[in-house]
């Protein structure tokens, strides 16, 4: 560097050596972290409070694409009616091949899944027709769909309106 191109502008007596500041000589500089920690804590609290960790899941439902007019013929023997009364009682009744249907049976929630699987074992083309009362709670609808989804079957179910004859059936079976 001695024969370097140009000299650094040396300010002759400019350096005052900073005699006054003894601290400057210290090797490590101590930064007070308290304000930073405060701010970070604040941010952390904010994020914890605004985060929703339970990401909801969805239950996909597909409605039939066609119009109401094009009806699909199904064998009544494959049909399982699930009727739910206003009270929340669930009734299963299996269709018979001759077009009639078996008398409704009240099914408790716990063995719903096993029953559906049982019906599926006897008729693999099982179609579940859901007839829910309009006054029934939405919670129960999700629960029943959940039971059907849990059952180890090929899921084929369809929503139907609960007509007066259905209400009559349910009523006669105990409401």
């Amino acid at each position: 560097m001695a024969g370097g191109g140009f000299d650094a502008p040396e300010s002759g007596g400019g350096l005052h050596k900073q005699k006054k500041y003894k601290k400057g000589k210290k090797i490590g500089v101590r930064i007070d972290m308290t304000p930073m920690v405060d701010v970070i804590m604040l941010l952390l609290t904010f994020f914890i409070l605004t985060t929703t960790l339970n990401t909801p899941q969805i239950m996909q439902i597909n409605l039939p694409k066609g119009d109401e007019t094009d009806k699909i013929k199904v064998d009544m023997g494959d049909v399982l009616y699930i009727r739910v009364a206003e009270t929340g009682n669930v009734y299963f009744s299996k269709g018979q091949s001759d077009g009639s249907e078996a008398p409704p049976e009240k099914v408790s929630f716990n063995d719903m899944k096993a029953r559906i699987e049982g019906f599926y074992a006897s008729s693999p083309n099982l179609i579940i027709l859901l007839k829910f009362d309009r006054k029934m709670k939405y919670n129960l609808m999700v629960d029943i769909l959940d039971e059907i989804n849990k059952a180890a079957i090929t899921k084929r179910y369809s929503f139907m309106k609960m007509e007066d004859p259905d209400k009559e059936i349910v009523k006669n079976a105990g409401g």
Partner: protein
Amino acid sequence: MKKARSIKKPGVNIDMTPLVDVIMLLLTFFMLVATFKAESTEAIEIKLPESVVTDTTKLPEKDIMTLTLTKSGDVFIDVDNYKVREKVFGDAFGVGLFHPDSTSKSEYENTGGMVGGKPFKRKVTLLNRTQMEKTMSDLRLALKNETAGKSDFRIVIKGDTQSDYGVVEDLMDIFKATRNTRFALVTDVKSDKPK
């Protein structure tokens, strides 16, 4: 000599660096995980039903048309795109209200602007059945215009556990009429089985 000196110091200096490290880590975690409560869900409080659905379908992140069913039988139709909202409802935070039961009035109208017992601040457009059908197609159309036909709304139903099934049935009728054959029910994950 050194030891003696440090003891003599009046204040005890705690090294905060590890603490800051841990907090920073936590902060980063929460920032990355954070999905903010959407405007709509904050305003309308509902209790979602729980399910143990086996397919691992999660709620899509955007382009959702949310139909919120409240306890009192009202349906709020909302989308997550504010431009679309502005176009259809005339307000960036507008929301549609449909009361399927024509024999009664919605909670919003009865209480003069309350939803779930709390004042509702967003602009509400009241819809009847035909307007509801029109709004649904308007919303889809608006989004298609907005994104040049690239995206489409997914319809999800967020129902309160205590709302009536009849409302869902009416909505399914509307879906059929408007040729929306796919929709989804939003549920919470069931943690354990009490039954």
